[in-house]
């Protein structure tokens, strides 16, 4: 293998005049080095977003708890599986990263069939990840009604007891009331009220959501449950920090966009490999290596997105 590498370097020298300076900087091709430097700059972009997330989170008295927010999974119904689905997504991305390494290795051996096979698996992995993310977003937007401007996920800052049930109706006598402690997460549900009763949501009507009028005349409103703190104060559930929704959709969306463009580039290069374009170049499928770097970077960013959004 060592002699192969030397032969490969010589080939580079002949073919590309080694960047016109007779000697290759860092013994790497222009394309590969520039891919690295692009990734460094992209790392700074992501780091900027994640540091902003940290700064904003530090400035808030409460922040939604991840294992409360991310506990749903497809076909799960009302079963709770904290972090289950997102762990699955992480595995999908890790596995697609491994298949990518295999594709690069087969490329070094000039094994066209091997490259096609492993790259194809990588594309499937990337597409599966995107599908998972699509489900996650759909669930958050249309089931839990989180948006860029509204975050129904909150965290209690003090212990207390609810005065009404999940539908905003006061508890009947004899029914055991729900209690909570500081740090417990909650989700403000939306309820359907046709008759304009004076439920909890209306008192704060002007604030964030006055409710949207529906064609059939019914009203879609947030049910802000009332509770009594341990100190005997009467209070109402409020929305969680707005920034949470915006940061979540913006950062995971930006990562998802990287995955999407990665899948597109992988497909283009896969087609080129299959058509035999790189066979003639005889440079160990360097194009596959370059897109491989990008693909691993996407996995690398996910390590940190996973850390700050789902673990901490």
């Amino acid at each position, binding site marked *: 293998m060592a002699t192969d590498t030397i032969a490969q370097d010589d080939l580079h020298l002949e073919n590309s005049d080694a960047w016109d300076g007779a000697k290759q900087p*860092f013994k790497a091709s222009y394309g590969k080095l520039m891919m690295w430097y692009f990734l460094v700059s992209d790392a700074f972009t992501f780091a900027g977003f994640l*540091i902003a997330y*940290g*700064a904003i989170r530090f400035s808030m008295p409460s922040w939604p708890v991840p294992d409360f927010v991310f506990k749903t999974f497809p076909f799960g119904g009302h079963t709770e599986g904290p972090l289950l689905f997102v762990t699955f997504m992480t595995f999908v991305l890790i596995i697609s990263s491994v298949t990518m*390494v*295999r594709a690069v290795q087969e490329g070094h051996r000039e094994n066209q069939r091997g490259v096609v096979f492993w790259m194809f698996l990588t594309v499937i992995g990337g597409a599966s990840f995107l599908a998972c993310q699509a489900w996650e977003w759909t669930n958050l937007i249309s089931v839990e009604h989180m948006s860029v401007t509204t975050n129904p996920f909150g965290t209690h800052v003090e212990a207390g007891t609810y005065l009404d049930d999940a539908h905003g109706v006061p508890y009947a006598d004899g029914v055991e009331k729900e209690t909570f402690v500081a740090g417990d997460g909650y989700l403000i549900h939306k309820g359907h009220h046709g008759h304009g009763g004076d439920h909890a949501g209306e008192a704060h009507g002007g604030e964030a959501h006055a409710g949207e009028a529906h064609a059939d005349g019914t009203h879609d409103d947030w049910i802000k449950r009332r509770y009594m703190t341990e100190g005997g104060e009467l209070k109402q559930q409020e929305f969680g920090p707005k920034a949470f929704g915006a940061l979540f959709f913006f950062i995971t969306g930006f990562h998802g966009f990287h995955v999407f463009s990665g899948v597109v580039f992988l497909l283009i290069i896969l087609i080129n490999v299959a058509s035999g374009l790189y066979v003639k170049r005889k440079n160990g499928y360097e194009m596959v290596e370059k897109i491989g770097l990008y693909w*691993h970077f996407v996995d690398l960013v996910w390590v940190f997105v996973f*850390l700050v959004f789902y673990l901490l």
Partner: protein
Amino acid sequence: MGNLSYEESKKVVYKGLGLLALITILEVAVALIGNGHIINGFELPRIIMYPLMIGMSVYKAYFIIYEFMHLTYEVQGMRMSILLPTLLLVWGIIAFFQEGGSWFKRRDQIKQKNEKPAEESIKVIGMHAHPSTTKELF
């Protein structure tokens, strides 16, 4: 592929898969056990949980960069030209987290000022803005 033979590097890849999967499972286990989801009534303090999870993530990142992205097999100068600039982020993290903490502290201060009667709070704001001119004004 550096100095590794094809068979050797194939082994490294599958070892890497096992390693990354294991660390991910450990991370999630720390998060779930720490928050009291697995063992009833047992929770870990955050000061133990957070460094553990951050440490494991950094190790995962190191492994991906060095093995999967082959940075180990590049020349020293190239490695440094990629890794050294990221040191700037250390300052970014310190500065912005400090800033976030200060916003948090000022939350109470702003609330207090909002509760003060209007005249008094104008005086305070004026003094803060221009200490020299306030003398003439009041």
